[in-house]
């Protein structure tokens, strides 16, 4: 994982910040884009790039839940089970997916395609129950729609997110976006989903917009 392209991307990320240590989080996202998770080699490389001890980088990598210390699937499925989503169906969806996939929380299917995690509130409560795949929105889910979704992911036919790009990127591809490497897809997808427009539409109906 020391190819020239990766090292030069790291340099350009570091150059954005007034102090180099601030680049630690995007660099760890970039390690995930390259390796799929934060490998020990990745930690060493980031430490070397930032002139830090590996323990200092490991301390950061282990604090944040998006940094994975073992491989996840090409499609990492997060089911919101915080209170509101849980009550409205998230608990049933998560139980249904565990059963359907035959894996538990924070586990991956044997084919390496799909991993499963219960996640906290993802700021889409007006679209509850919510599933995130590779941190793209899949809104208004049911147990059945969730099972269909993971079946499509496993068969190599991933559906488009509800509010996101036209096709679903892989875990590694989206990790690069989180590192600040543009994939040129900002213009794809809707500007707003139906719930985001609910108040505006009612304001128009009432002559208040």
């Amino acid at each position: 994982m020391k190819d020239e392209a990766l090292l030069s991307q790291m340099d350009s990320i570091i150059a954005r910040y007034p102090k180099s240590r601030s680049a630690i989080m995007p660099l760890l996202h970039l390690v995930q884009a390259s390796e799929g998770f934060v490998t020990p080699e990745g930690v060493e490389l980031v430490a070397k790039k930032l002139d830090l001890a590996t323990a200092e980088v490991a301390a950061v990598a282990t604090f944040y839940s998006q940094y994975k210390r073992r491989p996840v699937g090409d499609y990492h499925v997060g089911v919101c089970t915080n209170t509101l989503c849980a009550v409205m169906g998230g608990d049933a969806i998560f139980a249904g997916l565990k059963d359907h996939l035959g894996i538990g929380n924070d586990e991956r299917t044997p084919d390496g395609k799909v991993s499963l995690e219960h996640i906290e509130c993802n700021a889409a409560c007006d679209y509850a129950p919510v599933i995130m795949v590779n941190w793209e929105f899949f809104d208004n889910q049911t147990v059945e729609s969730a099972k269909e979704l993971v079946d499509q992911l496993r068969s190599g036919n991933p559906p488009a997110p509800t509010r996101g790009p036209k096709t679903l990127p892989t875990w590694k591809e989206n990790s690069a976006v989180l590192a600040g490497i543009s994939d040129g897809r900002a213009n794809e997808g809707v500007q707003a989903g139906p719930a985001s427009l609910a108040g505006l539409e009612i304001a128009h109906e009432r002559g208040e917009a």
Partner: protein
Amino acid sequence: MTALKPVLSKHWNEADSFTIAGYQRNGGYEGMKKAFAMEPDAVIAAVKDSGLRGRGGAGFPTGMKWSFIPQGDGKPHYLVVNADESEPGTCKDTPLLMANPHSLVEGMIIASYAIRASHAFIYIRGEVTHVIRRVQQAVNDAYAAGYLGKNVDGKGFDLEMIVHVGAGAYICGEETALLDSLEGFRGQPRLRPPFPAIAGLYACPTVVNNVESIASVPAIFYHGVEWFQSLGTEKSKGFTLYSLSGHVTRPGQYEAPLGITLREILEMSGGVRAGHTLKFWTPGGSSTPIFTAEHLDVPLDYEGVGAAGSMLGTKALQIFDETTCVVRAVLRWTEFYKHESCGKCTPCREGTWWLVQILKDLENGVGKAEDLEKLLDLCDNILGRSFCALGDGATSPITSSIQYFRDEYLAHLSAGKCPFDPVASTLFVGARA
């Protein structure tokens, strides 16, 4: 009846609302030009006069925060926008940044000009990839338009804007934990004082503001201070996004003057889901004490909600009907706080763990009646005893739910189990079955 007032959300129904062309077609970056015609101190004074208060939860006057930055001190100044939207129930900044990211960029340019910052950061949570794409593109397009970089819009000041992506930690929504995270450390809160205005990012004077607070600034300059003052209530000026979610007919974003009531929002949006009644709700996320049907007419502004015993918070109106077990809801929120406690302060780290143990027993009907007093005693020993407000927030749903629903806790004990059917509260039965 209070009327809705779409300002930030006014053009979200236009397909290109997130582009610089779409934004400028509707007056985008005009507020910036008006602000640039004023001296920086006058810009701060205008925001102060407008009455704009923080939209991230605490409600601190935005202009006053800006005025705390010492000027002429020879140090770099920083603006940091908190886009780490993670408070359970809160879902306003995410659609705002997806549909209208330039309102934030324009507001940040005005704020940086006012406080004399040459670096501005957007700390955005890492779990919203498409929102991050839109924000990064907006920043890039603002550079291309000459609104960022060297000699901004010919005004003779420089401004670099950096999009910084988080990695999954609720605590980083706390402003000093956010700064530690942005400096490249584990996100743990700092002891205050010193406050960020004196020693924030890299120990330099720093303003930390919520997305919606800063995104509201361009409208103040575009329409004028008096226009902004004409909206809202006496001490809570302006417009804001209310996020309606849960067991309602039409969940979504409702932008209105501060002071609208939940009854008004429900009446115009079709109310609680058909065949059901309101049981409890949060006015501003899970860290704000819950309300019940008796609070439907509380004005949703900083003073009104405070006087009724809760907090306006993030205006995240999570609605739960009579099918919802309040003990289950509170247990789940408490598990969240336990998971997200950063571990720095003992009362929060250990206290939230014990809260979960006791609540689990109560929900499963194997607790004891005296556990309620133990919970309240624990809350009393967590509240106000840590560096930040995470532990305080963890106590809010517990103490308020015991206040309003003590009998329901006790019903779990007499039944020896949870008396609710969790299927009844889902969306798949009822409306969509």
